[in-house]
């Protein structure tokens, strides 16, 4: 049985959105025209006949994006210790979904920290690493989970971009994840991860990445459990004075508190490296 503290779509309907979702999504399309290479990668990278050669050929036209892919391929996360010297091999090492994720980051200006909530990437990389490390326990591919984590806060970034002060206040007033989602629904008519899912779905990201975003509040959903747990881990590491929620509650008992210390340690160690690679620093 589904038990969720969140409002049902019907109840949300009574809220007064200050935010036109359609307009926001349309603005992303506009951004895509400014980053044609990234847009092309987003559209071709999930095709079954994509090859590292084809993808790297497209990628080479966007020097900034290509250098980030190289940097990521040589980051500690992939363990290649500087062995990746060609773009094609870099694409092979990080995988097509990751290349596509990085292109999406570029496309949506998530690489511009000045336009993002404070400490956005600190939280996002922790979230992505936590999701990736936890994925095998939930039967998911770590790589997809990493990408999902990297893009999960796209919706929040869009709120921030379109309602800077209002979203900052909302976040300040609602430090818990559940409470914040409730407030997002009331204020914008949609909550951040749902917005992310819709955007990703439009770009043809696989359902393995969008379903968890859609089901994050369905505590009975196994697909949502991984993302909930990753959010909890990231919050514990990055939100000041965060009050932890027992992890078992988010994960239908699949994770216990005693499982977390090594995971927290590893995420803490690797997050900064991943952040630098993602931002090309």
């Amino acid at each position, binding site marked *: 049985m589904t038990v969720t503290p969140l409002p049902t779509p*019907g109840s949300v309907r009574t809220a007064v959105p200050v935010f036109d*979702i359609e307009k926001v999504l349309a603005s992303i399309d506009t951004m895509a025209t400014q980053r044609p290479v990234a847009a092309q990668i987003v559209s071709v990278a*999930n*095709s079954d006949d*994509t090859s590292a050669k084809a993808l790297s050929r497209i990628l080479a036209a966007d020097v900034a994006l290509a250098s980030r892919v190289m940097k990521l391929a040589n980051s500690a996360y992939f*363990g290649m210790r500087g062995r990746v010297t060609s773009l094609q091999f870099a694409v092979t090492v990080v*995988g097509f979904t990751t290349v596509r994720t990085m292109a999406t980051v570029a496309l949506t200006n998530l690489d511009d920290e000045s336009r993002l909530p404070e400490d956005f990437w600190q939280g996002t990389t922790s979230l992505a690493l936590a999701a990736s490390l936890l994925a095998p326990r939930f039967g998911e591919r770590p790589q997809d989970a990493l990408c999902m984590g990297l893009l999960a806060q796209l919706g929040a970034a869009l709120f921030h971009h379109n309602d800077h002060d209002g979203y900052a206040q909302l976040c300040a007033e609602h430090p818990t994840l559940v409470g914040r989602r409730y407030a997002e629904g009331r204020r914008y008519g949609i909550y951040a991860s749902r917005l992310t899912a819709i955007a990703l*779905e439009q770009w043809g990201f696989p359902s393995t990445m969008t379903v968890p975003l859609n089901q994050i509040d369905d505590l009975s959903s196994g697909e949502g459990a991984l993302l909930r747990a990753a959010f909890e881990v990231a919050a514990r590491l990055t939100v000041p004075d965060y009050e932890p929620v027992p992890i078992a509650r988010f994960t239908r008992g699949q994770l216990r508190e005693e499982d977390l210390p090594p995971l927290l340690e590893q995420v803490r160690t690797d997050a900064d490296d991943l952040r630098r690679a993602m931002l090309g620093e």
Partner: protein
Amino acid sequence: MSVSFSAVHDDLVPPEIISTVFYSATVSDTMAVMVAEIDGGVPRLTWCNQGAVQLLGYGLDDLRALPLDHLFPSLGSGELKLLMRRERTVRMTMPVRTASGADVESLIVSTPSPGGRMWAMRVVSTANEQERALRATADAHERRFSTLTERSPVPTLLSEQGMRLAHVNDAFCTLVGLRAEQLLGTGWLDTVHPDDLDDVIERVADALEGGDAEAKARLVLADGDVRTTIIRFAHLFTPGVGAGFVGTIEDITDRLAFEAQLAHQANHDPLTGLPNRTLLAEYVAERFRPGIAGLACLFLDLDNFKVVNDSLGHAAGDELLVEVAARLRATVRPGDLVARFGGDEFVVVCENVDETSAVSLAERVSVSLAVPLHLGGVGVRPYASVGVTVQTAEHQAADDLIRDCDIAMYQAKAGGKGRITVLDQQARAEARDKLRLVAELRDAVERREITLLYQPIFDTAERRPVAVESLARWHHAERGTISPVTFIPLAEESGLITSLGMLVLDETCRQMAEWDRLLGSAAPPRANVNVSALQLDTNLAAQVADALVRHGLDSSRVSIEITESALMKDPDSAREVLQQLRDLGVELAIDDFGTGYSSLAYLRHLPVDCLKVDRSFVAELAEGHAEIASAVIALARNLNLCTVAEGVETAEQADELTRLGASYLQGFSLAMPMTGGASAAWFAAHGEPAR
């Protein structure tokens, strides 16, 4: 596939085609298509095809009356417009609620009309039977694969991306002693020995780029133990995802240990555990730098080891060798090599020492060895002769050093056992000269450059020639004639005596056959061929028989001469060989009789025909001493043996020997040794020999 028609220009599609396509879409029951529009601010369906009616379970009119958001229960308030974007086609995966209230998971593709007022929505159920079957098959494959790897005793890694592992099986976890969670991602890299990590990454890079690769890597286990493994990487490509690898691990630690043990056995003496001759050669060769001093060798040979072996038994001999090995190891400096060269010979190799230090070490070794020990209840004081060589500019190769050391040891031994000798230049030169001579002798034998001379033997009564003795001669191109006194012992020492003996036998037989052809009945009736003690083995009779057959000679045409001392080396086996020769039909003579220590009783049982009175006893006749010659001749007569007196140099000696009763005479006064050709002429001139 796209098909174009000549009638179609630009975007203008003829109405017939539009109506054809529309008709097919209308009646299609395999494709669900709906058209929606916003009517008074509320999105509604205005048209559906057969497929949509069937999928959704509503009648067409009901569908038209239905608020569109009722079909998409998962969409939040205001989210319906996300499906009805005017600028672009939208794809969304979500449940579609049917008339029965059931939700069908579907992909909705919503395409706006050019005017932006209507949307064609295609609904593709993602939960149809075919997809479910495909997914079930894929799941079954996945389960089978994971069961296979999970249960496999072969440690297996499965990468998702780059070096990152998505899966490790139980066998790998067991091997390294860690849990799967600790190994996934890049965790497994912590188990790879830091010195091997670079190579592993290189090989993974090869596999990711499409090849198969193999790395030898040490894995550091959770308990600190280190295992050596071969990791084989195979490329793994997932369409739409990218490249990974499957790695299988073979633990070769035990195999390597076994191989190391075999290598150790191949390079070490099993009795003492010391490096053997092979390893010694490698060791010296590795350290030898021509022209640079630095290496020193001590060559030790235990004195009287044979006595211990013979008197106390081989077990005691072995015990002595083990004790000597232990004392040597305890005496040399750390880093010096002690090797067992063979038998009772040991070699110590030192680096960075001068002659004084090397001699000093040799003295310490001698002192340490001389401490008495008890073997089989007997007190033994081991002494060794020690040869010392320090590397000089004259040493061109590592072997030179060991060889010089060996020479020095022989010098020490020759100087009276228990000594230490440092190799001097003259001894080195002599030894090297001898080595060169051996090589030249080998060449001479191979090229049949050893020639034969034949000295006639006469019967005493009529002084007619009855036989010849073959005498080997070596004329060296540079050194001139080399005496058999020099080259026969050299051939015996260097293992060339068998070849030389065969050469003499074969050439003699060939010459006999030639004389027969040339001289007929005037040819020498018999030839005496000398055989060395070292040829006295069970092959000799067969070799003689072969030579006779090869040249078509009767066995009575050859007599084999063997020295008395050769017979006494191993009397039993000598008698056996003589018997075989006798059975063959050849005559046998004992050469140099009287110079050895033959037991007369033993002599009586030897199957010989003749005794040759040594030339030294014949020479004594001139000094008035006929005692020994007389005794030998008398002894032969009493044993029914004939006698040949050698070295007859004067007519007086011949007369005296005749008087004493010698059967045959041989010497310069009667006839000189001659070549085969000269012999033929000599026999032709001296008429019919006595047969």
